């Protein structure tokens, strides 16, 4: 079985700062994979480079065995992307956004309309379908973004912080859709800080820290009997003691 995603020595620097240092990310096909790491670990940069939105300074990335920067036509047809920040075409309504996205990829209009209708229904967005995206809440934007990413039936889905700022109800909808998607043999890779969520959803985990992969494998192996949160803190070297030194002024009542 080929891996859904395999990078080799992926490298990116911004000026003096090295954002991603020789990352070898591996995600087997059909897995529900979590990419975890502290802020600034290079998760977004890595995902952007694999999806062709950011040019790497070195190394290669493959999706389904295809070279991301050489076989762009095939790769782009196979991947669905939900980037960070989630800027969408704000002046289109949710339905128009899905129609535009699908037709841009050459899917016939009638087919797109049917898929868009079903996706809107599943995402519980039917009532808001004809409102402009600019007026959507964060949760709605994540959902319409996910719908747009799923519209052309990709085989690998890249999601950057899909659950950030999303209310529990919308988060539940998102996870249900994603579970169904992976059950059909497709691959999901998402980045997150929320260890509980990763532990609950994923069967494969890659841990990034300071631009490098520090652990990678099936969830049980990475966890090694601990909770994922515990394992994560040990891997990325978070301070075990709770900051007793310094900060003595914090919480002290000012004397009158």
């Amino acid at each position, binding site marked *: 079985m080929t891996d859904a995603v395999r990078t080799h020595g992926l490298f990116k620097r911004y000026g003096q700062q090295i954002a991603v240092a020789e990352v070898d990310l591996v995600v087997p096909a059909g897995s529900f994979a979590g990419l975890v790491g502290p802020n600034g670990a290079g998760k977004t940069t890595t995902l952007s480079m694999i999806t062709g939105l950011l040019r790497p300074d070195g190394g290669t990335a493959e999706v389904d065995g295809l070279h991301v920067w050489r076989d762009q036509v095939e790769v*782009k047809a196979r991947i669905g992307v939900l980037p960070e920040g989630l800027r969408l*075409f704000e*002046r289109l309504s949710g339905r128009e956004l899905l129609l535009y996205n699908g037709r841009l990829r050459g899917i016939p209009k009638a087919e797109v309309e049917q898929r868009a209708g079903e996706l809107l229904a599943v995402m519980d967005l039917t009532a808001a379908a004809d409102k402009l995206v600019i007026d959507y809440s964060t949760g709605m934007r994540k959902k319409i973004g996910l719908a747009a990413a799923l519209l052309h039936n990709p085989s690998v889905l890249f999601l950057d912080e899909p659950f950030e700022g999303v209310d529990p109800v919308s988060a539940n909808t998102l996870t249900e859709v994603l579970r169904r998607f992976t059950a059909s043999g497709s691959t999901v890779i998402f980045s997150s800080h929320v260890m509980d969520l990763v532990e609950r959803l994923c069967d494969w985990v890659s841990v990034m820290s300071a631009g490098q992969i520090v652990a990678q494998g099936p969830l049980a192996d990475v966890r090694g009997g601990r909770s994922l949160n515990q394992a994560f803190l040990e891997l990325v070297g978070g301070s075990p003691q709770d900051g007793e030194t310094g900060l003595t002024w914090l919480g002290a009542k000012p004397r009158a």
Partner: protein
Amino acid sequence: MNTVTLFARLKLRLLAGNLRGDLQRKLGFIFTLVAATGLAAVGFFLMSLLRFAPPDVASELAVLAFSVFLFGWMTVPLLVFGLDDTLDPAKLALFPLRTGRLAVGMFTASVTGVWPAAMLIVTFGALVGLASSAGGWLLGVPAVLVQFALCVVASRLITTSLSSALRTRRGRDVLAVAALLVVVLTQLPNLVLNSGFGDPAALLHRMTDVLRWTPPGMLAHAIADGGPAGLAEIVFVALLVAVLAWLWIKALNRALVTPDVSTQAASVRRERGLADRFLPDGPLAAVVTKELKYIRREPRSRVGWFSAAVVTLVLAFSMRNLGVGAGLPILLTSAGALMIALQSGNAFGIDGRSLWMNAVAFGSERGLIIDLAGRHLANAMIAVPLLTVVGVAAGLLTGSPGSILPAVLAGWGALGIGLGVGSVTSVVLPYTVPERMNAFTGAAPGQGGVAAASSLGATAGIALLILPFVVPLLFGLYWVCVAAPFYGLLVETLGRRLAAKIGFPRTPELLMAISKPT
């Protein structure tokens, strides 16, 4: 004093930070620096030349210049790309700063920069040009400084009081009208000059008779006067500046605490789509449909279209007296076409960060070609009928119906040339168009130079490509216009293909350039 140095350093740090690690921005900044230095030197020189003019003419010219400076400070930041890199007061709202201190800081930040320094030098040129007595020299320095303060405070007052309105979505729609008024106002002198006042000296005299009593006019007069009257004038304007500053602080106060109340969402009509009626189903139809919606719904596109229309209209009135006769409709229609096409000089700017959606869908150059074609087609669907109307109306109003056909054909041709050149500048010199037109900037901070280079490049490219038609037209050979639409189509096609060839491999860089923080 502390506040002053702090904010001056903050502004310089921001300017420097914007330049870090991006060659294009550095070049843009160097371009700005050279332009500003040139302006300062030439302006100072010209102003000091007033010394050799007869005293009354010199004084009148200085009155006019000072008034124009003030008007420029009030309007140029609203119109021209990237000259106004000032701080957004909202970013400082949460710091425990008294509004007075904040105002001092914001004032410092607005005078710290390349263009303000250049303008200060030019204004000092008036001192050299006008001061004739010891009193003139003595009063001149405060007069120049007060003039500079007047310009800065008036400019800040306008942008701040409008910025609070512009935070709301509805406010941004009002901007469409506001920007139009400014466009009309800038054309006013043009109109006055062209409506045949005859003798320029008499015209100058009549204009300065009025302008002399405006605040900038009083300051210019004070330098020339150099006596007690001059002193009184300076004191009066200084008080006026203080009042304006107080108003500005009030406006700042309001801007900082007024919330955005624009989230009441309305549904849009579901429509079948005009483009689908005549285009085959596919990506092209999708792009055209989206673009037509954007032209209608996006305030920034609306402003562009409306101002193109208004400028054309104003041009029509001001060219009426130029004596071009039968050539006027041709000139006018082509100018209108270029105004419309110039909007596409940064075609991806309005999409901004959302362009990733296109980037992940396009696997080859073909995608970009279709995207540009769709944008051009949507543009032409509005521009072609509009230009036809302009050509017919101009032909009928000038009483030369014979020139209607060449005018309309020339307009279509010019549109094609503009779109072709614009697609190349869109990929070579892309820049971010700010989402919130808060301070009316046309580009993200630090990208002003890129924006200016882009529009200069587009203008130069268009001028070069239009030459084969200008020359025969100058000799009255109107029949060449028959070839114009075909030539325009050719340029559009070649430009689009060239743009895709350059642009597709640069997709990541293009995305970066148009999604800078604003």
